């Protein structure tokens, strides 16, 4: 479903933010992407979603290259960034309708999904209010709703649990599971190791732009016979 083939990102100061990363994320999988601050998680997600271009390597989404066949590749996913910055002078409902239009969601599905997700996240009463009157958490929920409405093949989220209350976190986790149960794929980055351990089918640990571990949480733990948290701390400590 999502293939990342040897991507690297070198910024103008010659710093390699991502170094030869390879990933193959399968359909129906919840894939966790973890690493310390500045490890290259957000850069990788930005390259996958076409926000920035990789210096080298190739990314395929549903078999389409994000570089050479961007529109078709982008039809396969929706993205929730770590900072909920969107059009903020418009009303919440305007944003959700905009996302529906962008991904060609018909009127019936749109109504049904908007009601379903906004009720689940308890923002249905705020939809007629301008987005700039929303709290950080409410904006985050609006973005998640906007990303779920198109029912994408791949649901990509950057640090989705930051800023969400426990209730909303639970809802999000359930929706991720439901999405995968229906054949969708979820890729998210996180610092919350407990969530990653309990939710993900597979996990990738990235440090200084390089992939240092990949597998199911159990596989990674079995190799070392310690908890994922200890593994993470051990692997990502500076030499």
């Amino acid at each position, binding site marked *: 479903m999502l293939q990342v083939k040897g991507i690297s990102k070198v*910024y*103008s*100061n010659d*710093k390699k*933010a991502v170094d030869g990363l390879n990933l193959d994320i399968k359909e129906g999988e919840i894939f966790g992407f973890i690493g310390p601050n*500045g490890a290259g998680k*957000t*850069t990788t997600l*930005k390259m996958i*979603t*076409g*926000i*920035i*271009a990789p210096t080298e390597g190739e990314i395929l989404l549903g078999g389409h290259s994000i570089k050479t066949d*961007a*529109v*078709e590749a*982008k*039809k396969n*996913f*929706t*993205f929730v*960034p770590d900072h909920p*910055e*969107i*059009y*903020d*002078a*418009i009303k919440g409902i*305007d*944003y959700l309708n*905009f996302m529906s*239009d*962008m*991904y*060609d969601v018909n009127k019936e599905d749109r109504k049904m999904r908007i009601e379903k997700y906004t009720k689940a996240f308890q923002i249905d009463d705020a939809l007629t209010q*301008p987005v*700039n009157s929303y709290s950080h958490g409410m904006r985050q929920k609006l973005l998640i709703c906007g990303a779920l409405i198109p029912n994408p093949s791949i649901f990509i989220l950057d640090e989705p649990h930051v800023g969400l209350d426990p209730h909303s976190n639970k809802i999000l986790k359930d929706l991720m599971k439901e999405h995968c149960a229906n054949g969708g794929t979820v890729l998210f980055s996180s610092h919350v190791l407990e969530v990653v351990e309990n939710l993900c089918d597979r996990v990738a640990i990235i440090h200084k732009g390089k992939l240092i571990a990949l597998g199911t949480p159990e596989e990674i733990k079995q190799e070392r016979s310690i908890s994922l948290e200890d593994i993470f701390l051990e692997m990502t400590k500076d030499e």
Partner: protein
Amino acid sequence: MNKLYALTKIQIKDFMSKYSQQLNMKSKLLSKLIIILPLLIFLPAYEIIKQVYVSFAAIGMPELTLTYVYVAATILIFITAIPLVISLFFYSKDLSLIATLPVKEDTIIFSKIAAIYVYLLGMALLLFGTSVGFYGLYDGLKPVELLLGILGIVLTPVMPMIFATLVVIPFMTFIGGRKNRNLMVIVGNVLLIVIILGIQVLFTRVQMDPASLQNYFSSSDGIIALVGHKFPPSVWLTKMITKSWLDMLYYILLNLGFIVLLKLTAKHLYKGAMLKYNQQTSQGNINKKGKVSYKSSSKRALLIKRHLGIIVHNPTFLLNTVMTMFVPILLFGIYSLMGLMTLDTFKDPMFKPYAIYIFTGIISAPVLMGSLSTTVITREGKTFWETRVLPISINENLLTRILSTFIASFGASLILAIATFWIFPLGLIDILLSIAFALTATLCFSTLDLIINIARPFLNWSNPTAAVKNNLNVMISFLPRLAFGLVGFVLFKLLPSVGGQFVIAVFSVILIIGFIASYALVFGRYRMKFINMDI
């Protein structure tokens, strides 16, 4: 097409909503009415166009109004389009979101252009539309000309807008790879001023040469040829409205050509510039090693440094502050280039009795035009909470805001005083009195303006222009200035024989009283308002 429509619609909706929200109007009715505020700016334009029409109609060539106004409208639209292109293509919060959407590059470019077009169409309607109105209605209804004129209005923004896009985006690409994007705001705006000055010079030189004007007027196509020589589309459009179908074809083809050119270059423009800017934002996380300083400073100095730093480190705030403070110098530059004024003008004996007033006005311009305290809380935006949680007293918090405005404004006044005192026939006492006036005016308005900002804080802005320009506080701050100005005028009229020194001295005393009253209000009644301010 649906996606282009949806993408355009949301951007226009966001733009219009932001405009009314950023004016910080609490009343919904007022916020709707305030949208028409810019129309007032165009009332003088209506008068000018009327004058132009009457003049050209008098020599039997009313269609020249179209040529003349079209050239002016095109230049103004081009100039207006530059900051709009920069703002919508590079400073918009939607860049990351749009980059992930399943839409083609040209759809993104065209949706953004469409949002800009709507804004510029309003400008074309008010400027060129007025001339079409005069031409089509003033001496009896000319229906075909009016319809062709409407087509002309619709097409007027296309060429300058796309031209601005094709110039600005590659320039931003060049800048984006080297320095941070903020540089562009300053470079771009300075460029605009140079262009405006250049145009002023170009037009005034033609106007100031009556002999050559006479020659142009003597032939029927004279002025059209004059303008058209440098800008043929103005000729095509004028002739189009006067029912020349061949010129209509030329004009439409020209606009279509620009649209096609934009479509052909859209992919390159998007990848070259917008993606590059997204990348630059991502790069911000990389740690840069530099010299670490552990020097300590007083809380007051730090707070003042913080308030001044907010201006200095934000190119929009800095440019706005510098531009408004140095308005007199800028005006003098324009007038000098236009040949309306020279340094010798001020040496004229006729000027001598007024020299002290002019000098006082020039060096007081920073505080009179700057209104820095009206936005000293607003400029902090979402970081305002920081001073709330710091272990500083409310009085210190308020005082440092006044002091930061005072330092910036009075500092600029001193620079202006040093730069201009030698131009005027003034004695030492005159100069000292003028500086004393600037000092008292700065103290008075730095404090008085803070009351406006405490009463009307606006912290939830999404772009810096909204905080310092579209904010109604700035307009409100001109009311007390107007009131003080009236007092000064009455004083001047009541005491015609006492001389400038005495009037300036008395006026300074009035300003000191104004300062004391404002100070008492800020640290009395408005102190509580500041404490209870919602953030």
